[in-house]
C-alpha cells in the first residue's frame, strides 16, 4: 500500500498543481491573470507527460558511447556508415547498454512549450486590443459594457422602426 501511494504521489502532486492553474483560469476576472493561470495549467500538463516518460535508473536520452556501436572518435565522419550496418548483420535494432528515459514525450512537450508561448502572446495581443476598445481588462466589466451597448442598439432600432411606421 505504501509503495502504491509512493509510486503515485508524484502524479497526485502534479494533478494538484494542474487544478490550481485551472482554478486561477476559472476564478480570475482579470484577463491577464486568467492567461497566466492557463499557462500554469499548460506547463503542468507538460510536467505530467514528462513524468510519464521517466524510467527508474535511466538517464537523459542522449546516447552514451557504449550504445553507439562502431563509433570511433578518431574518425568523426562515417563512424557508423553502411559498413558498420553490414558488420552488424544489417540489423538496425541495437541492444542498449544503458537505460534511457523515453524520448518521445520529451519531443512532444518541447514543441508544445514553444507553441504555447506563441499562442500565449496571441492571447495577450487580443487582451491589449480589448483594453484599447473597452478601457478595461476585467471580464465582467467587458460583459457589462457589451450588454449596455446591445441594449442601447436595440432601443435605437425600436425607435427607428417606430419612426418609420409613423
Amino acid at each position: 500500500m505504501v509503495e502504491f501511494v509512493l509510486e503515485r504521489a508524484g502524479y497526485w502532486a502534479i494533478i494538484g498543481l494542474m487544478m490550481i492553474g485551472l482554478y486561477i483560469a476559472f476564478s480570475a476576472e482579470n484577463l491577464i491573470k486568467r492567461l497566466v493561470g492557463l499557462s500554469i495549467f499548460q506547463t503542468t500538463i507538460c510536467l505530467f507527460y514528462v513524468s510519464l516518460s521517466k524510467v527508474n535508473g535511466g538517464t537523459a536520452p542522449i546516447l552514451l558511447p557504449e550504445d553507439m556501436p562502431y563509433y570511433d572518435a578518431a574518425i568523426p565522419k562515417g563512424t557508423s556508415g553502411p559498413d558498420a550496418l553490414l558488420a552488424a548483420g544489417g540489423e538496425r535494432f541495437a541492444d542498449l547498454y544503458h537505460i534511457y528515459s523515453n524520448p518521445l514525450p520529451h519531443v512532444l512537450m518541447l514543441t508544445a512549450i514553444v507553441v504555447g508561448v506563441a499562442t500565449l502572446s496571441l492571447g495577450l495581443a487580443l487582451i491589449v486590443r480589448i483594453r484599447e476598445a473597452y478601457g478595461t481588462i476585467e471580464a465582467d466589466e467587458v460583459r457589462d459594457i457589451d450588454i449596455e451597448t446591445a441594449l442601447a442598439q436595440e432601443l435605437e432600432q425600436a425607435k427607428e422602426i417606430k419612426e418609420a411606421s409613423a
Partner: protein
Amino acid sequence: MRELFTADAGPALINIALLAILFVVAIAIARLRSLFAIVMLSGVYSLVSAAWYIAVDAVDVGYTEAAVGAGMSTAVLLGAMLLTARTAKPEKPLKKLGPFLICGATAVMLIYATVDLPGLGDPNAPANTGAGLTYLQVNWFDTGVPNVVTSVLATYRGFDTMGETVVVFVAGLAVAMLLGFGERSLAETLRTAKKRRGKGKEGEGS
C-alpha cells in the same frame, strides 16, 4: 520504512522540494492581485519546473522551458501588462466557490484515474516500451545522431515539427496583424525624440 532512507532518497527529496516550491508559487499566484507580481511569479514557476524537468531526465524540455517559459513568455507578459493594467480587481468571495468545487471534483476524478496508471518511473509501462524504446534502439544506425530527441524531432517526426514551425510563424504573424508591426511606433518615437532634442529639454527623462 527503511527503504525510504537509501541512496534513492536523494532524487526523491529533490522532487519533493521542487514540487513544494511549485505549490507555494502557484498558490501565491492564485491569491495575489498585483499583476506585476503575478507575471514575475509565473516566470519563477517556469524556472522551477525547468529544474524539475532536469531532475526527471528531460534535459531538452528543461532547456526549452527555461528559455521559453522563464525568458520569453515573461518578457511578453510584461510587455502586455505595460499596455493594459497594473492590478487586478479583487474577486468576490462568493464567486470563488463554483470554480473551487469544479476543480476539486476534477481533481478527485483524475486521482481516481491514476489508480490504473503504471507507477512513476516504471520501465515496463506501456508508454516506455512502445515507440520510445524503438526510437532509442533504431536511432544510431538510422541517423547517427547521439541526441535521440533531436533525431526524433527532425527525422522521425519531421512532419509534426513542420506543423509546429508553421504554427509559431502564424502566431507571430497574427500578433503583428493585431497590434501593428511596430514601425509606426518607431516613427513616433523618433519624432518625439527629435522634438525633444529640438526644444532643448533634458534627454531621456522618464
